[in-house]
């Protein structure tokens, strides 16, 4: 094992706004920094309330009725946040969702 000198490091105290250039741009407006980052959207058909006993006993073939009408829009979620609604379509051999409503915030 080689011999190294080890010494303590003291990190400087930081103060909000110090060392900022005169015309600093908030990072929140720099969408270009993250525009290519991929996020995962989830399409939710609907929900149902089930007793755990039924969940434990659930077998293949069982049909679970959901809380949405057939022609109701599906939810488009970004992680757990509902961001839009839309209708199911076919795009070639893939499922797709045509956006019918954008939810603010």
């Amino acid at each position, binding site marked *: 094992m080689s011999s190294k000198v080890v010494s303590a490091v003291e990190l400087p105290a930081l103060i909000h706004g110090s060392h900022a250039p005169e015309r600093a741009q908030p990072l929140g407006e720099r969408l270009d920094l993250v525009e290519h980052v991929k996020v995962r959207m989830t*399409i939710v*058909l609907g929900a149902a309330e089930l007793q755990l006993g039924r*969940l434990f006993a659930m077998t293949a073939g069982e*049909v*679970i009725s959901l809380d949405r009408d057939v022609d109701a829009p599906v939810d488009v979620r970004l992680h757990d946040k509902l961001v839009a609604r839309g209708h199911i379509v076919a795009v070639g051999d*893939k*499922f797709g969702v045509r956006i*019918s409503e*954008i939810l603010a915030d």
Partner: protein
Amino acid sequence: MRAVGSSIVRPFLVMGEGRRRVHSQHVQACVERWLRSWAPGVQAVVNVEPAGDLMRMAGLHTPDIVCWRAAAGPDGQQLIVIVPGQCIPRLLGLQAGVIETIAHQHPEEGSLAAMVVAEAVRTLVVAVANCSAASVDLQRNTAPIAALLREAETTRFTGVLVTLGDPRAPLVLLSSPQLVSGTLPAPSAALREERVERRRRAIADEVVSVEALLGHAEVSVSDVAALAVGDVIILQEDLGANGSIAVRGGGVIAGAMPGQLDGKRAVQVKKRGDS
């Protein structure tokens, strides 16, 4: 001889406090004679007649068992059960049926008291198994104890304090699932499965929210920011692919084929655990 336990288990059941006062000079003389021969230096002796009464119901005879309350260290009182050698085979011969009979002989006390009595007998059986000589064949006698252990778990017994005779000199029966299980082999796979099944039944009525998921799409942040009505998001899933069912806030529990039932959207469960 060795102590049944090193400290007193915190009790939550008290039975018979001050109800029984039996003073038998003969029994007292027997106790003191035994104690002189078994454990010199005894500091206090409880009234053993009720304990003897309990044992008579179990087919034993007073004073086969002597319960001796001794002043112990910082933990406070400590019960030491002294058992004459000739008594051990009979104690270990106790069957579950005998203990149930004892419980049923106390209908006026209600089921709780019956359970306490059964627990007292059970404790003594285990205590004897702990204290007795190496000749004790514990394996041969674990079946009734194991059955009672399951009962104790069901009723959430953590300890029993039975006050017999003078309330100022309570007879403390140390008992806990830990103490009992410490004398028994590990539960069998069948017993573990039974416990799991029991817990399943206990929570079977709880309601959880599940969601049916059609699929997912990977989109860029810029596409999300520019998303507008009329846009089409292309999912990763093929048209013939299954969706999935997930517990809200949990994981996927099964694959599911989207469809409809009576005017409502619905899903048909496919292979479980396969999304």
